[in-house]
């Protein structure tokens, strides 16, 4: 991510996938029932860190996501707390029927973490990019769906996931993420983190888009527009209260996500806004297409996901206010 804009600088930290690996080790030390599974991507998802410290509680499944998800269901039915990880696109897309039948429907206490979410994975290209995982996860009744924005948010939410009774999905990212929080910040499932209390427009974002939204917030301030940013790290259950307050107090909303515009954060927020306090909305996200190979920065720019694109969306939505 380009980390500077006018009056605004972000320091880069660890990738959220790396924070996941660290938090998983912490969980392993605290609770002997925590087990981890991975489908031959443990070095990339960082679950390998857990495997190194707890080899007896780490199951490397091979390239067989469907079997892995089913196994996680069986482990959960036997009192374990399984964390199963792979690339988000393979975990969700190849494991979907199993997530539905063996996890969501019986509502077992199993956790799933998909790394390499979105197009910011860069050069590997679209076959490895999850741009539909949030929509799929939201389509599983009873699932919690999380997209942490930085390493501290990710680490805290991994712990919240372990405390939560029921199935959860978390998307993590490949590239380093800008630091937005500290180790002292508290995170709760279903409670957005608000940055600023601007009243002209609300920017509701998740994952890497929170950093871009904060950049956009600074740029808008230069132009005399006061924006608030909501870090919506929990897409389901959505913080309807924060969304309604934003709609009521700002009267205009822009959502930003590294995901197809069909069925992701924007869709969830729109549903909430329509039901509480209807307000004009604009949506920043991937427009009905698959991306390509390139550097993360190039792709985020080309596919319309950077701060200037959020600023443009704000200008459009303000005209409709």
């Amino acid at each position, binding site marked *: 991510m380009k980390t500077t804009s006018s009056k605004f600088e972000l320091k880069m930290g660890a990738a959220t996938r790396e924070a996941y690996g660290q938090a998983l080790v912490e969980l392993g030390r605290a609770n002997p029932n925590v*087990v981890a599974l991975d489908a031959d991507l443990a070095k990339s998802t960082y679950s390998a860190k857990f495997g190194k410290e707890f080899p*007896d*509680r780490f*199951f490397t*499944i*091979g390239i*067989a996501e*469907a*079997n*892995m*998800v*089913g*196994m*996680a*269901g*069986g*482990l*959960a*039915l*036997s*009192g*374990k707390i*399984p964390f199963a990880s792979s690339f988000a696109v393979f975990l969700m897309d190849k494991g979907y*029927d*199993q997530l*539905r*039948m*063996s996890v969501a*429907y*019986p*509502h077992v206490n199993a956790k799933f973490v998909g790394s390499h979410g979105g197009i910011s994975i860069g050069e590997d290209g679209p076959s490895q990019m999850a741009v539909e995982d949030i929509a799929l996860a939201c389509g599983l009744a009873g699932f919690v769906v999380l997209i942490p924005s930085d390493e501290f948010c990710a680490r805290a939410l991994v712990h919240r996931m372990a405390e939560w009774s029921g199935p959860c999905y978390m998307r993590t990212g490949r590239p380093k993420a800008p630091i937005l929080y500290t180790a002292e910040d508290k995170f709760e499932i279903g409670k957005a983190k608000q940055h600023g209390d601007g009243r002209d427009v609300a920017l509701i974002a998740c994952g890497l888009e929170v950093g871009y939204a904060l950049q956009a917030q600074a740029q808008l301030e230069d132009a005399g527009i006061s924006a608030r940013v909501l870090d919506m790290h929990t897409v389901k259950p959505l913080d309807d209260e924060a969304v309604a307050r934003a709609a009521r107090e700002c009267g205009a909303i822009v959502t930003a996500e590294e995901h197809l515009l069909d069925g992701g954060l924007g869709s969830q927020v729109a549903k909430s806004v329509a039901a509480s306090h209807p307000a004009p909305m604009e949506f920043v996200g991937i427009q009905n297409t698959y991306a390509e190979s390139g550097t993360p920065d190039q792709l985020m720019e080309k596919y319309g996901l950077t701060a200037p694109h959020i600023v443009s969306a704000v200008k459009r939505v303000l005209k409709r206010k």
Partner: protein
Amino acid sequence: MSTLVEPITDLKQIANRIRIAIVKMIGAAGSGHPGGSLSAVELLVALYFRVLRHDPKRADWSERDRFVLSKGHGVPVLYATLAEAGYLDPALLSTLRKLGSPLQGHPDKRMLPALEASTGSLGQGISIGIGMALAARMDQRDWHTFVMVGDGEIQEGQIWEAAMYAGFHRLSNLTVIVDYNKQQLDGFLVDILDPAPVAEKFRSFNWNVIEIDGHDLEQCINALQQARAGTSRPTAVIANTIKGKGVSFMENNPEWHGVAPKKEQVEAALKELEANAR
């Protein structure tokens, strides 16, 4: 804790009562899967009355053996067996598939906690069973996990992902029973996608394989007891069965995969089955 032990002649009567219950409950429901329920009767009788370590008074006993019915559409045979074994009030059987009944059309653990897993989307039970077997191994417990799959079901790719995993990791506390009745919804396996040779496939995935006549109670009991005592590999019990077994007009007729008998067909079936009763 106990395995319910009955003489073989009594087990045959239990099997016959279970067949009667299957026909009645599917007839009353007006929908369901009689063929693949009737083919698995002796296997379930062997499990619940001779092989499983279980206690019908404590369905959640942590040391119980687990049984996962991966071929979830065959659940009437499981409900009827659970009723015979004392897990269920037999009066509940007539509520099969009715709104609010714990006896859902496919196994639903939310509604009936005595079930080990919810199933119905084919191909998933062995993976669930592996998770259970690994949990037992990690905790150094000696309970055993049994999973029943259909022979059509093993056309699903996930079955072979799971078979590869369990064989490679020598999960000797896992047994898969293949209800090999040679038919699936659309017809005979040989006309659709024949999984034969099934025994050789499991052997090549490093499983111990036992082939039996799945309607011979002594063979079922011996094979499942042998599988439960397995020490170095998972076991696949390939049970040769007859779809619709026990009801002459249903036997070996794929039309009875997923169709409920009408009133007069229920009566004809019950007449045949009741003639076998003492």
